[in-house]
């Protein structure tokens, strides 16, 4: 083709000048990855709505409905405190300034929650100011909340992730791994001294209760027992380490074990017990500071987000198999669609 000697070179540089410019589009369009500075453009670049995506209107509707479900009364009511039947004597009591402030406060829980979030935000952006504010207000437990916000090892629910049916599979895999580990131990019959001694910690292995364990019964507890013999053995074969292991926090099971069963040695029937956490781990868990109100809220993990939610007929409550073409409401079949149309027409017109 005759291009009059002009050779087009694909440029990859972009200039950030005011106004607008053509920018070479060298990559395949990945709308999700486009981090546009303009929110409008980001919204426009979204891919076409899929079935699981909700339009803004639907989202607003759902949010409003949830708020309505969370209310104590359908309408705002103002019920004043009625006068006492016998004439209030306590009412004339003098209140301390704190009490007066609390009694007169008309804040709702949402207000308090907003205050708390604002305080946290301030503490993050400007610790000094927050500390001064705390000192001024003498808000008491902010030290603990500050700890839980910054230094606590406690994972937030979001990072804790979702554990659903799918992640149960992950849990099972983890357990299976544990199982393999123990089987390997059993096969080797060689304890791992460093990990075991670490787990046992500084507490000396306590004299485990006398348990009439059958010789040759090689279930998992046996593998623990062999592991423990690496320690200064209490009394060699008769003593049996118990489950959970020596722990000052959760004492060992002190009763005789259930009677032996011929199937105990069967590798298919053996029950395997995951390693018990060390005392240090337990101590850290038990003394961890409380999470904040928002952190404790159960949140969707990756797993829950991946699958579409169930939809129901807005009229009768059966599965929502059909969508109204006008407003997108789900209904189950023609009868319900007609019932819905009447409402839809009055709301949105023909």
């Amino acid at each position: 083709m005759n291009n009059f000697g002009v050779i087009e070179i694909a440029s990859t540089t972009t200039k950030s000048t005011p106004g607008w410019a053509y920018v070479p589009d060298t990559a395949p369009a990945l709308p999700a990855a486009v981090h546009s500075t303009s929110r409008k453009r980001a919204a426009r670049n979204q891919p076409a709505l899929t079935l699981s995506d909700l339009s803004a209107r639907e989202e607003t509707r759902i949010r409003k409905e949830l708020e309505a479900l969370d209310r104590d009364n359908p309408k705002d009511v103002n019920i004043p405190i009625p006068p006492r039947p016998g004439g209030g004597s306590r009412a004339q009591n003098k209140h301390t300034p704190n009490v007066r402030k609390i009694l007169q406060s008309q804040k709702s829980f949402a207000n308090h929650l907003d205050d708390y979030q604002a305080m946290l935000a301030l503490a993050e952006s400007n610790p000094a100011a927050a500390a001064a504010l705390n000192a001024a207000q003498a808000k008491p437990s902010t030290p603990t909340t500050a700890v839980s916000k910054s230094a606590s090892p406690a994972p937030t629910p979001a990072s804790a992730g979702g554990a659903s049916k799918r992640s149960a599979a992950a849990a099972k895999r983890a357990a299976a791994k544990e199982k393999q580990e123990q089987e390997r131990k059993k096969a080797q019959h060689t304890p791992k001294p460093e990990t075991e001694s670490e787990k046992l910690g500084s507490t000396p292995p306590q004299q485990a209760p006398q348990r009439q364990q059958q010789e040759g019964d090689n279930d998992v507890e046996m593998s623990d027992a062999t592991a423990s013999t690496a320690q200064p053995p209490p009394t060699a074969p008769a003593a049996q380490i118990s489950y959970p292991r020596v722990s000052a926090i959760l004492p060992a099971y002190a009763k005789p074990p259930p009677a032996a069963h011929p199937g105990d040695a069967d590798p298919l029937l053996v029950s395997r017990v995951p390693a018990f956490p060390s005392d240090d781990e337990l101590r850290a868990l038990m003394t961890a500071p409380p999470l904040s109100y928002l952190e404790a809220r159960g949140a969707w993990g990756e797993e829950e987000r991946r699958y579409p939610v169930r939809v129901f007929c807005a009229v009768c409550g059966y599965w929502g198999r059909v969508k109204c073409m006008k407003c997108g409401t789900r209904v189950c079949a023609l009868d319900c669609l007609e019932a819905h149309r009447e409402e839809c027409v009055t709301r949105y017109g023909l």
Partner: protein
Amino acid sequence: MPASRKSRATGPPPPSTTLVLDNGADTIKAGFVTGGKADDAPRIIPNCLARDRHRKTYVGSELEKCRDFGEMAFRRPVEKGFIVNWEAQKEIWDREFFDENAPQKCDPSEARLVLAEQPNGLPALQTHCDQMVFEEFGFASYYRGIGPSFNAYRDIQAIFHTPRTPDTPVDVPAEVILLIDSGYSHTTVTPILQGRPLHPAIRRLDVGGKFMTNYLTRLLSVRHFDMRNETFIANEMKEAVCYVSLDFKGDLEKTWKGTRGERREDFVSGAGIAKDYVLPDSHTTFHGVVRDYDPGGASSRGRKAAVSTEDVLTLRNERFVVPELLFNPSDVGLSQPGLADLVMQSLSVLPIGLWPGLLANIVVVGGNARLENFIQRLQMELLERVPDECVVRVACPENPVISTWLGAANFARHEHVERLAVTKQEYEEYGAGWVARRFSAGLGVDT
């Protein structure tokens, strides 16, 4: 902290009377522990100011005198499980405990208060609570602890009916339990070791009794009558007819009326699911009545209706769709995991070695535990999610509503209370901040 212990040793002896309060959003559970002896059961007081359609206001237990609950409006001092409006709460407490002719008269200056609160409270609200208790009511001694952990002071293995010999000592507090508290405002999952809650693993689902009642109200308003102002009646209906489905798909199929012109056998006969609910008429009857579904349908009802003017609702999938929200909150668009997934989220931050113990000791308390099949469904869903080797036992105490109170009453007699409670002198000396830190630190680890 050692300093405080020393001061307690020299201080006055602890008061012999303890007022144990489980101050719920819907009802207060209140009772006394005197000299090591607790009341058999707490008094259950509605925690609200209620106004009926004649604009008469009822405070707390006065609600018993109310007969007609139509168009009842409520003002609740507790929001989301936390005491927010102290003006109303003080009025209710005054009338129930501190007035001269109060039904449960108590002299705060010679009593200890053990108050159960929800986990993960806001610090500002906790401070308000401490300040009110000491500065306004003037209790001599006080402990504010999270409600779920009080349950550990009950005889947990009796709830599970664990076989054991009568001379077996009862572990108090229980070594390890996973407590699910499903109340009016929300549902919480709390793993507890030796009476100490494992704070990093506490999770909350914002679906509670109120949420479900409002959902039932909405469904009925769309399908039958406008019930939006009849929260109380809808709540009674929910308690009477709702159940947790063990086979949601199957039950939903049975209650479907079918496509146009279709006569589905299950729908016509009701399939054992449909129930008739007779609404109160506010003249002769004031509480609804559940009846078996009358497949005769409109014709026979029409004949009856000619004689009596009762309003009958036929409830079909409303019966199990409403409690289903606990297990699938996304059905109404709430982006939170269901209860079984929430338990798994809670477990996922704990070492796997604790799972067997926790899963084998799941206790469900709170009013929603009364829903039929609740624990069966939870057990079923958990079994799908946990490793095969884990034993899953889910149990619900005989009366799940007062379980936290009973635990707190046991706690008030346990030696732990002496280690945890704060006296008025200590409050005056060290201030509210110190008290809040002390309560949030809890028992510590050493037994």
